[in-house]
């Protein structure tokens, strides 16, 4: 329940920020262009909070936090007094209208740069792309890439951490070949390979792109030392504490954490004797293993988690930069996010990427919750990603969206008169149906993945 609330709260905050930023873009440019803004609303529906400024603009925070809008004076929507006509949106030069409509998505991109800039100033820890193993019979098993390789380049882009690798792998979906470069552990010789990825079938339901190609990222071993004991659990009742190192269960020596889990889960509600190393001394504890029901199967359950062994030196590194570098880095990353989003949309159209990859609001909510619990820097990175996506999606030339309005205005720019409203209506119908169905697919995917 608490986790659910956390997810919802993160989602509302993330969306609130992004909607506010987007609408503020429209609002600010509209004001600069001399258009009268009647209302600036974050959220739809019933107003929760309201304030009116001296220019007559109403600022509203409304109940349904799934979007927002800026309502400008417009003759096509309502009656406009003659003295107000110069301030109506539809009376502006088409270039001004283009600026007002384009401002929303553009501010989304600027916000992404800003969020990433802050993220790089604070600094975040990432993991070097070291390959621990390659799954047999996988696509990468046909290449000469070996264990302990440190991936340095995918395609024509340098990669520094697994997140970069993930981005570049995704951008290769639907291609036939992948150029990849790596160094061996000694960091001197750079090797390269061209991997044939024609047979690569990426399915988001079956793990990450990294895993689906057969790469196993290096991660530290799980130790036999307890990291966390759930209050009121079986482990708690037995008397286990964090930092206890498990030596034996019922006299059997435990080699690793998997063995411990296996031993426990096959003995639901049974009595167990646990030998642990605590403060240099061996301590014997006794009690009953608990139980946990997963999908109708009862398994033994203790309620503790292990600690991980420390990352070897050089595996983790911190992306932290000075002001200038952080700006360049943030712009770089935002640009990559933009190009990748466009690439993915293109592949969706050509069929290289299945509609199964579409994610909707639920996936965004989960992402928001997860990144928020990982810390502020991750939340900033997540905000930047969603902000870029929001900007790109809004620029699609679908009527209903900003891009659709831009399309009408560009036509007007060439034809010299506004697109007839009857034709605009056709556009709204086509755009509306497309958007409604795509949203349904995305939400359907989200639910299927839950």
């Amino acid at each position, binding site marked *: 329940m608490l986790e659910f609330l956390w997810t919802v709260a993160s989602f509302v905050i993330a969306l609130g920020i992004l909607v506010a930023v987007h609408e503020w873009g429209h609002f600010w440019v509209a004001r600069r262009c001399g258009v009268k803004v009647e209302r600036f609303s974050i959220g739809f529906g019933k107003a929760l909070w309201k304030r009116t400024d001296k220019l007559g603009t109403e600022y509203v925070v409304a109940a349904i936090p799934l979007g927002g809008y800026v309502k400008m004076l417009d003759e*096509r929507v309502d009656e406009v007094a003659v003295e107000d006509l110069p301030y109506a949106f539809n009376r502006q030069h088409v270039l001004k209208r283009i600026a007002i409509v384009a401002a929303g998505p553009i501010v989304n991109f600027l916000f992404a740069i800003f969020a990433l800039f802050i993220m790089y100033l604070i600094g975040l820890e990432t993991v070097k792309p070291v390959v621990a193993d390659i799954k047999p019979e996988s696509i990468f098993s046909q290449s000469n890439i070996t264990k302990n390789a440190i991936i340095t380049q995918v395609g024509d882009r340098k990669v520094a951490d697994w997140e970069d690798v993930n981005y570049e792998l995704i951008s290769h979906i639907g291609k036939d070949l992948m150029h990849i470069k790596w160094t061996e552990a000694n960091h001197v010789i750079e090797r390269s390979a061209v991997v044939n990825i024609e047979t690569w079938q990426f399915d988001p339901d079956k793990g990450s792109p990294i895993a689906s190609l057969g790469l196993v990222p290096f991660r530290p071993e799980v130790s036999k030392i307890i990291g966390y004991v759930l209050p009121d659990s079986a482990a708690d009742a037995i008397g286990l504490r964090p930092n206890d190192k498990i030596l034996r269960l019922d006299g059997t020596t435990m080699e690793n954490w998997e063995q411990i889990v296996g031993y426990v889960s096959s003995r639901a509600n049974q009595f167990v004797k646990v030998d642990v190393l605590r403060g240099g001394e061996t301590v014997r504890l006794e009690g009953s293993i608990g139980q946990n029901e997963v999908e109708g199967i009862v398994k033994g359950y203790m309620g503790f988690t292990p600690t991980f062994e420390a990352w070897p030196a050089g595996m983790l590194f911190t992306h932290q930069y000075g002001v200038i570098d952080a700006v360049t880095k943030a712009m770089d990353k935002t640009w990559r996010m933009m190009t990748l989003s466009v690439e993915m949309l293109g592949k*969706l*159209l050509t*069929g290289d990427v*299945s*509609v*199964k990859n579409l994610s909707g609001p639920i996936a965004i909510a989960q992402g928001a919750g997860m990144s928020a619990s990982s810390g502020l820097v991750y939340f900033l990175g997540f905000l930047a990603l969603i902000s870029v996506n929001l900007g790109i999606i809004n620029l699609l030339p679908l009527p209903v969206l900003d891009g659709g309005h831009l399309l009408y205005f560009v*036509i007007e720019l060439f*034809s010299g008169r506004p*697109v*007839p*409203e*009857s*034709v605009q*209506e*056709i*556009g*709204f*119908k*086509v*755009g*509306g*149906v*497309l958007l*409604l*169905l*795509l949203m*349904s*697919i995305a939400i359907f995917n989200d639910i299927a993945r839950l």
Partner: protein
Amino acid sequence: MLKQRIITALILAPLALFAILFLPLFSFQLVIAAIIGLGAWEWSSMSGITRTTTKYAYAILVAAVCVCLSILLPTDLIWYQGQLNSLYIYILSAAAIWWAISFFMILGYPKFSSIWYCSKVLRGIFGFFTLIPTWVAVVSLRTSLYDVDPYYGASLIFYVLGIVWAADIGAFFVGVKFGKHKLRPRVSPGKTYEGLMGGIFASSAIIAFAALHYQVDPSRIWLHVVIGALTVGVSALGDLNESMFKRCAGIKDSGTLLPGHGGIMDRIDSLTAAFPIFAFCYVMWMA
């Protein structure tokens, strides 16, 4: 008026249902040809033709083309080894081009209308491009996969009718019940945002239902959705196209054949665009 409209619909609907489902293919072709002929009669008035003999000649010519096609191409050869007859593909492609042109004509109206405005011949030719592909499209859809499932083609026809009519019906009922915000108060006071949404919602529901019914492969869902949305849009285009021609001829209803509905063309205007374009997309990408 509404009562008359409903009575007419209640008489025609079972007839249409029977024709689509149970009529032997050859008779089906002739029935559609007859409807197209009646449409052509009305189109001749919209083209500014006033002499009764010329109107007869035009209507008979259009219907005769359809009948000739039915005689020349036996129904079991319309689709041969999963391929639509190439003449029919050309006709559907011509229709696709014609509707693209029509779109730009409407977009530019009345800027370039002087080219065709005064020409009865040109407007008559436009009628050919509107009516004959509709016949070809309906017949091609009806005979699609006929040897596998004789009702498959009928279901495709119902699908197109469903998309087009759901938009109108959804818009009408949602507009009446919830309509509050006027779409364009000065041009068409009856239309509301809520109605527009209702139409969009209803059409989307039909498209989604069809995706489940035909068990569209996930990799092609996208295509299915695009074709559906295109059909919704193009049906509205058919509507506008007819209005534009009627406006040129200075008439309100295309005819008086259907009590309460106006003429045949008023009823099938959306379909003359929706059927050829849907069939074209279907033949190109889905068959």
